[in-house]
């Protein structure tokens, strides 16, 4: 492999792939049983973090950034005047193996611009994964992009070598997609997703009967939506997200704050801020939905279409539902404990275990790691001290904001800072 050419290509094709935020390398069950290289059991590992604070766990690259499409939000769109490059299959294999051997990465995340046709592109992605598995004896993690419009046969083969498959719907609503990517159709994204979903179900069922059935995409499917490029509100975004979780058994939906990369006037201007705080609130909502037992309609609905930026969505829900509180830490069930602002699932778990031994008081809760600055207004415990005033939601919110330092304070403050 010619070092200089590979170096040049890697710079271009890593740069083009970085807007895909998926970085997960967990959830697979591919053990190293053949004394080969790599192991993808158990939890994923973030081997490094870039200066923007995002994790580096996979070698995330495009096979090529040549593309026949012209989606306004995409940096590799046809009409964009950028350097183009394409990897050979063997180059990607060599890079992956050598990075993996040095413990730089957990595996490969391979995506691509679409050249010639969907099938032609998908075929090459599959070829890389196949070579890694069959020729290099590689058991590390492989995440392949499902190319919209690829044939069922190719999608079936892809799942046999990859741990995860994903197709990014990018724009949360069909109308937004029509405006920004007129030559793409929502159905093209859905088709490979349905195929993969069905194959996963089928392979799992067969594996129950015949042990030797091979694994099919053991780490499941994921997708990504761009936030803040096409004017959707949080309610629409999370509804779409919920729809995909429910109907396609997705493992993850990622939210990617739009990074302005185009002078197209359908999109936010270059230089405008990336909506990082909003992205953070959406992830929090996603977690409440998946791990905290919330139904999405409790957090976002017709009357409440956008998440508060100054407080987290759970606190916001609690303030709208003060009649559910206070909760008795020593009596409440898991579901209700999980709904108390300032308590994560780890604390919930610790409380449930610890209260079997003795009734818990403030000191215990503090040591366990509960964020009492938020929780104190919503709980009672084994102590005769608790919030007795009948405070309104606004008052509580005011107290909490006064006593907390948000890392986002700067972007939240709409006060004029004179003489700053």
């Amino acid at each position, binding site marked *: 492999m010619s070092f200089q050419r*590979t170096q040049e290509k890697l710079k271009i094709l890593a740069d083009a792939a970085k807007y895909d935020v998926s970085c997960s390398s967990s959830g697979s069950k591919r053990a190293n049983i053949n004394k080969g290289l790599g192991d993808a059991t158990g939890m994923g590992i973030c081997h490094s973090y870039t*200066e923007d604070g995002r994790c580096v766990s996979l070698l995330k690259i495009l096979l090529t950034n040549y593309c026949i499409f012209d989606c306004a939000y995409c940096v590799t769109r046809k009409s964009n005047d950028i350097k183009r490059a394409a990897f050979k299959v063997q180059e990607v294999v060599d890079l992956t193996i050598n990075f993996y051997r040095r413990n*730089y990465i957990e595996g490969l995340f391979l995506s691509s611009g679409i050249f010639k046709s969907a099938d032609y592109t998908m075929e090459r992605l599959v070829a890389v994964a196949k070579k890694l598995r069959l020729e290099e004896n590689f058991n590390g993690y492989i995440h392949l992009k499902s190319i919209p419009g690829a044939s069922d046969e190719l999608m079936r083969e892809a799942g046999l070598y990859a741990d995860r498959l994903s197709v990014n719907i990018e724009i949360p609503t069909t109308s937004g997609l029509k405006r920004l990517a007129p030559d793409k159709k929502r159905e093209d994204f859905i088709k490979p997703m349905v195929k993969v979903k069905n194959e996963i179900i089928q392979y799992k069922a067969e594996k129950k009967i015949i042990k030797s059935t091979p694994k099919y995409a053991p780490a499941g499917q994921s997708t990504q939506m761009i936030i803040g490029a096409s004017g959707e509100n949080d309610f629409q975004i999370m509804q779409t997200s919920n729809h995909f979780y429910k109907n396609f058994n997705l493992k993850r939906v990622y939210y990617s704050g739009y990074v302005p990369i185009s002078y197209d006037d359908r999109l936010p201007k270059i230089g405008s801020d990336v909506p990082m705080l909003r992205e953070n609130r959406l992830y929090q909502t996603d977690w409440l939905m998946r791990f905290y037992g919330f139904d999405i309609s409790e957090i976002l609905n017709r009357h409440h279409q956008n998440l508060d930026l100054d407080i987290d969505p759970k606190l916001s829900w609690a303030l709208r539902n003060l009649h559910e509180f206070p909760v008795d830490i020593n009596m409440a069930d898991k579901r209700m404990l999980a709904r108390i602002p300032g308590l994560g699932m780890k604390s919930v778990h610790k409380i449930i275990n610890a209260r079997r031994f003795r009734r818990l008081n403030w000191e215990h809760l503090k040591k366990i790691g509960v964020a009492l600055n938020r929780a104190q207004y919503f709980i009672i415990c084994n102590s005769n001290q608790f919030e007795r005033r009948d405070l309104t939601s606004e008052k509580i919110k005011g107290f909490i904001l006064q006593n907390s330092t948000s890392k986002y304070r700067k972007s939240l403050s709409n006060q004029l800072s004179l003489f700053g």
Partner: protein
Amino acid sequence: MQEKNLTYDGTFDGFLSAVFHVFEHKTGHVNIQNEFAAQNELFSDNETIITEESKANRVWKGLKAKLSTHGRCQLYYAFLSEQSGIENTLLDYIQYAFSRDRAVDKDYSHPSILKVAQMAKMVGREKHRMEAFVRFRLTKDHIYFANIEPDFNVLPLIQKHFKRRYADQKWVIYDIKRRYGLFYDLDKVDIVNMNFPVGFDFTKTDSDYFTEQEFEFQKLWQDYFKSTNIASRKNMKLHIRHVPKRYWKYLSEKQPN
């Protein structure tokens, strides 16, 4: 009452032998300390513990009946933290465990149990960090070599992970601080002591010892690390929280060009 000092050899078996001693002699006020960190006061009551595997095993087996696997695991993790005084917290935990009928390892409102759980968590984090931050470099004799300087003694904990993952390459992971390493010879992992040439710099990749290819892949990795960053989302605070500066020394992507 005068405090009794028990000094052990720093090994986990040694510590468990000391615990055995405490139970056997029904010693009341006791201070267990590592011989490398021992600070004995004049006229204090000192005793040196001889490590005996059979005694250690008896304590460990006894704990098995009293604790969940997770609980025993936490004891071991907390021990590897090498924090001063951790032995006494562990002893308190063990005495509490033996005094109760049911498993106490989830009694998080008991100070020693919480302390051990928290120490175990810190050690677990360090273990996970080392699984992430080990950077192998290919030497001229075809061994993938890495050096680390972890806060806690985590080599015994990461051995299995690396053996499973890098089953088809020879590798060494060397702890500079504790002066020992692990060596995998394609079959089994051994603990090794190593001698390095005079002036050997662990932060540098010297062409006398490492392959030519090694430089290329380090360069490619550094380039990749830069290209995959989104400058308009820069957040150094978060970056440093995830990759604390004390680990930068041996991370190839954080080396100045």
